[in-house]
């Protein structure tokens, strides 16, 4: 026969209220060292009370309020560790390059889509000029026809305004390319192909009017890195789409979460590169006083640096980790356990 509910409540109530008070104190950031010990003890006892209430007093308001209390305490006690700086360093030193290497199938597929778009755009303008010129934006056509670069407008407007406009535009393109993966990949594929077609068509149009050199001169400095980041965002979007279309052994939702986390890490990890290249695009690319070959060299160097980092970075450490993977996974479990208790 269980203890009468009123007796149970009056006996244990003081502890529950103390725990509730400590949680409020924790939220206010006023928790003392001695409180921590009390918090631990009170939470464990409240959890035991909840177990008992679930057996003896199921469906009563004691059980509901204990459930609420334990949930509040649990959410605060088992929060994520706060060594964000170290996690960030580890992410850029090892995890991001390793991620790109591990998911290279998607990176290649994404690059193929973008380059395929470029080829289609260029071919269309090259083979059927009158019809395909609709692919080229009208602003571009007008300025090219009159023998000027439309990008000259950029060098007339102050570079910082151009840089910020370009940065926001790039961010929007990358976000759409990644998140479009949730539409079963349609958004991602469309973003990659359309951007490719646009680039190819504009390039071919400029070539027909003898201005390809000037176009290359303009995009050489920022183009390689910018297109690379778009390819990586596309790869992340394709990862999400693949998880949706072919979840394998796992349920769709679990697979989506697992792959989505990796894809998001890829996109967010590349965001700083995109911000930096926006500055290059705003300041360096339109600068008339810099010679073209210098811009070309700068663009090639930046692109090589990015891919060198992504393909080779952290490789030594990764090998080390693989060699000791058995012990390291055990030690990670132990570390997690120790941060939890």
């Amino acid at each position, binding site marked *: 026969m269980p203890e009468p509910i009123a007796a149970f409540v009056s006996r244990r109530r003081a502890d529950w209220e103390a725990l509730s008070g400590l949680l409020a104190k924790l939220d206010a950031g006023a928790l003392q060292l001695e409180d921590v010990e009390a918090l631990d003890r009170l939470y464990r006892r409240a959890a035991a009370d909840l177990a008992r209430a679930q057996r*003896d007093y199921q469906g009563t308001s004691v059980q509901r309020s204990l459930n609420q209390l334990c949930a509040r305490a649990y959410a605060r006690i088992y929060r994520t560790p706060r060594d964000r700086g170290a996690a960030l360093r580890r992410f850029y030193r090892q995890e991001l390059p390793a991620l790109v290497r591990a998911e290279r199938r998607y990176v290649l597929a994404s690059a193929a889509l973008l380059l395929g778009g470029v080829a289609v755009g260029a071919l269309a303008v090259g083979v059927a000029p009158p019809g395909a010129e609709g692919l080229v934006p009208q602003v571009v056509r007008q300025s090219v026809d009159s023998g000027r670069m439309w990008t000259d407008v950029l060098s007339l407007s102050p570079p910082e305004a151009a840089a910020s406009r370009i940065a926001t535009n790039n961010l929007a393109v990358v976000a759409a390319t990644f998140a479009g993966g949730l539409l079963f990949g349609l958004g991602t594929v469309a973003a990659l192909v359309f951007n490719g077609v646009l680039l190819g068509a504009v390039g071919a149009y400029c070539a027909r009017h003898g201005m390809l050199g000037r176009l290359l001169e303009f995009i050489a400095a920022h183009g390689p890195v910018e297109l690379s980041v778009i390819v990586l965002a596309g790869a992340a979007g394709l990862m999400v789409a693949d998880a949706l279309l072919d979840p394998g052994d796992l349920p769709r939702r679990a697979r989506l*979460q697992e792959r989505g*986390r990796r894809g998001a890490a890829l996109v967010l990890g590349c965001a700083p590169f995109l911000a930096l290249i926006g500055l290059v695009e705003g300041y360096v690319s339109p600068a008339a006083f810099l010679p073209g070959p210098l811009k070309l060299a700068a663009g090639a160097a930046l692109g090589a640096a990015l891919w060198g980092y992504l393909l080779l970075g952290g490789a030594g450490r990764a090998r080390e980790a693989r060699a000791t993977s058995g012990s390291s996974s055990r030690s990670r479990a132990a570390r997690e356990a120790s941060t939890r208790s």
Partner: protein
Amino acid sequence: MDRLDVATPERVALDLPLAGIGTRALAYLVDAAALFAAWVVAYFVLSLLVSDVLGFFQAFSGLAQALLVAGLFLAQWVYWTACEVAFGGKTLGKRALKIRVARADGSAPGVLESAVRNLCRAVDFLPALYFLGLMTALVSGRSQRLGDLLAGTVLVRDAAVVLPRYEALAPAPQAAPGPPLSPRQVELVLSFLERAQGFDPEARRRLGRLMVDRFGAHLPEAERAPLYASPAAAEDFLRRRAS
């Protein structure tokens, strides 16, 4: 109502009530209104300080202007993520509606989870006013929009802890004798006692008699008669009976 089951290391299962789309939509409206109000206030404060707002920005130095525009763009997104990470999954609107973002185990979200679910607002918003997110939340088992599915997060309700109702019970020595009541029966009596004061007198008398019939069946007829006569006596009996 949907619930989220959580297994804790203390070997006791918690179940958290999940927030439905109505609550979530309201929380979003509060946040959107707060952001909008913040921009309006910022604009007016600025227009008090400088007479020509547009000229003020044009006079800015180059890099400052670029950073400003990028900052404005990011503020919309950073607001959600920063709030959720710093305040245990609560933005202003979620705090007002008493809901919070949680991982599948009920703990507060980390930077990555929060960043992902807020980045996906762009898709959930499609084609307008979160239509896609709404549809996803309707069909997904746990009222998750696409961003939540991707980040593995849910929204749970932080209901208030209600205990004072047990104070209504009498201390043990005055308890009325009889076969012990089950916890559910005690809950029933307490619910009745809590509301009895507000009932229509006739309903109060009738319900009191029904309750006495049910929980005082062991009493002889002579002892039951005064309980039938007065609602106050019936409620006092029930109070002692449930203790």
